[in-house]
């Protein structure tokens, strides 16, 4: 962890570092890739950095270049920039800012960290390394939970919305998008990393949702964690995008993920099941009688989870639904508590 922090600091301080210590990469990229004079329109600068990224084998060269330039010009995407800004010459400050951000990209820093923000569902969220960057699939997990809540009989919904527990809240993407769309809902969000807890809190405050969320610094694999959660009362739903990558697949992850994101949020153990089984073991204690669990998992997991649940009849849980993501891979699970 300490080592990781050092790497991160070095990378983040990129342009600053170039003055002193032998910061090979940052130094080179500064010299080689400073923008040529006269090439100062937004379109020109996007093309320039696209070429640079391509030469250096940076994935999503054009997208990265467009997002960075658009961000500096105050837009979310290059397509949403006003056309007048496409051809207008950029100021030296803007060029310098683009330069600095692009240097981070040359170090394979994820675009979301470079911009310091990203969008999830309708929300704009602050992103900060090493907290896990929400993936687009997870937007669909939220959609599914929203559909389920909408279908609950009115008696269950009563005057209070459901009480939801999120395990591993990261930047707060799932919890906050649920809160923003379900005005009566309350969420208990837990994460074992301090950085995630404070980022979720910061995002909740940015979106003025802090009154309906309780963020707890808690490792659900730790002994006695149940006692921290029980006082909040029976939950209606547990939702989680737990670490689910098989340990043997971890090495193949792209440098953007391996060197910047908190690997604890990704590594699910030998079969990617470590945290999933912890959640499923804990859930029956926390859920009310008809409570549900919604999980994002690896496409190999639906079968593994199903047979694991059969081997654990005492949990009184059953897999009642599997949904595919937008690429057609089985990605989401709905597990329900059944009467003992």
């Amino acid at each position, binding site marked *: 962890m300490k080592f990781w922090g050092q790497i991160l600091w070095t990378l983040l301080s990129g342009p600053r570092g170039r003055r002193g210590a032998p910061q090979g990469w940052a130094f080179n990229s500064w010299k080689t890739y400073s923008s040529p004079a006269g090439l100062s329109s937004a*379109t020109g600068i996007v093309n320039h950095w696209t070429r640079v990224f391509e030469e250096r084998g940076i*994935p*999503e060269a054009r*997208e*990265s270049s467009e*997002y960075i330039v658009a961000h500096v010009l105050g837009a*979310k*995407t290059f*397509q*949403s*920039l006003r*056309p*007048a800004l*496409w*051809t*207008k010459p950029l100021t030296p400050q803007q060029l310098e800012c683009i330069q600095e951000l692009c240097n981070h990209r040359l170090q394979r820093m*994820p*675009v*979301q960290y470079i911009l310091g923000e*990203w*969008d*999830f*569902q*309708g929300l704009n969220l602050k992103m900060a390394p090493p907290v*896990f*960057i929400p*993936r*687009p*699939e997870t*937007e*669909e997990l939220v*959609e599914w939970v929203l559909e389920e809540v909408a279908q609950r009989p009115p008696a269950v919904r009563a005057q209070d919305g459901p009480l939801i527990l999120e395990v591993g809240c990261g930047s707060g993407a799932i919890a906050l998008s649920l809160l923003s769309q379900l005005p009566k809902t309350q969420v208990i969000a837990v994460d074992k990393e301090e950085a995630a807890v404070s980022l979720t809190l910061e995002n909740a405050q940015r979106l003025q949702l802090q009154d309906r969320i309780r963020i707890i610094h808690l490792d659900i694999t730790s002994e006695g964690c149940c006692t921290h959660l029980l006082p909040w009362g029976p939950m209606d739903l547990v939702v989680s*995008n737990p*670490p*689910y*990558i098989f340990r043997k*697949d971890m090495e193949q*992850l*792209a440098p*953007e*993920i391996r060197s910047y*994101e908190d690997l604890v*949020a*990704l590594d699910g153990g030998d079969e990617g099941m470590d945290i999933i089984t912890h959640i499923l073991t804990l859930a029956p204690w926390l859920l009310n009688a008809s409570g549900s669990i919604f999980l*994002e998992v*690896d*496409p190999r997991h639906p079968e593994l989870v199903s047979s694991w649940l059969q081997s654990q009849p005492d949990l009184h849980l059953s897999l009642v639904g599997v949904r595919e*993501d*937008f*690429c057609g*891979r089985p*990605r989401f699970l709905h597990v329900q508590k059944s009467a003992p």
Partner: protein
Amino acid sequence: MRSGFLRSARRLWARRAISRMPPPSEELLARGGPLRAFLERRVGSEAGGLDAGSPQLAAAARLLNEKERELRDTESLLHDENEDLKKLAESEIALCQKEIAELKHRIISLLVPSEDMDGSDLILEVTAGVGGQEAMLFTSEMFDMYQQYAAFKRWHFETLEYFPSELGGLRHASASIGGPEAYRHMKFEGGVHRVQRVPKTERQGRIHTSTMTVAILPQPTEIKLVINPKDLRIDTKRASGAGGQHVNTTDSAVRIVHLPTGIISECQQERSQLKNRELAMKKLRARLYSMRLEEETAKRYSARKIQVGTKGRSEKIRTYNFPQNRVTDHRINKSLHDLESFMQGDCLLDDLIQSLKDYSDYESLVEMISRKD
């Protein structure tokens, strides 16, 4: 008979445009006029309860008759010897005339059939036509004008796609517009808009003529248009690899293909893929719906001068002449002489749209009468 009637109706309107007479729909409602006869028949038939929702109409018609009788009675007092009585009559008459005008206005709004989609939200599409970069520059100005108009009307405006040219112009763009009576107003903007001016790029000071096209597509509700999910192919840039936590890509562009019609809808305005999908879907729904509507509309309104839909899209509806500082709408022969304010997309554009709406109401009334004849 019918086309002859429409021709004379148009002459009547053109005359009014010049002399600023009261709206001719109200002239049609004058005693003995064709619309009045139609109204009497319509109200008469209501005893049989054929027409739902028209007690209001019947009441207004009755009140109109009463007020007109009152006016005639008062007019006879104008010849009275007594000066005081005469003065009193004059003020009574003025009041009566005002009430009659209001009543006629109300009757007309009750008579004009409102279209199904009038309450809908809509998709605005702008596309550069002939004239190269100059056409694209003008398209960009027009898109801005509609965005400002939406703000002026306090409508919701959301850009769905935007394809600029290298020189700051706009090839094509679309936006979703929603709010009270948005479609009812914007539907008159569909068609070819022509600009005449000296382009910034022109060195010899010659005036060029360029065009751009506006299309207005009503946004259907979920009930009005049902799309089978099996008919859709949704493409994203994450089709390969393990997906989920294994990858971190930022390309959020979405492309939806409607397989039966081959219609393609794309969106990359947003960083959230889900949001892009929603917007692309909105656009696709509007296209499919307008395709269906156009078949009906073409049949129903083939005789009209103000066209909404396919036919209207190829018609040159308006000219923006910069050297003369003039906007002319060719459908109602109306010219305005403050182009710059017009392009701000506030009162002047709103006035012109109101005139078009009045004229369209007038045409549908005339059409209604001639149909019954």
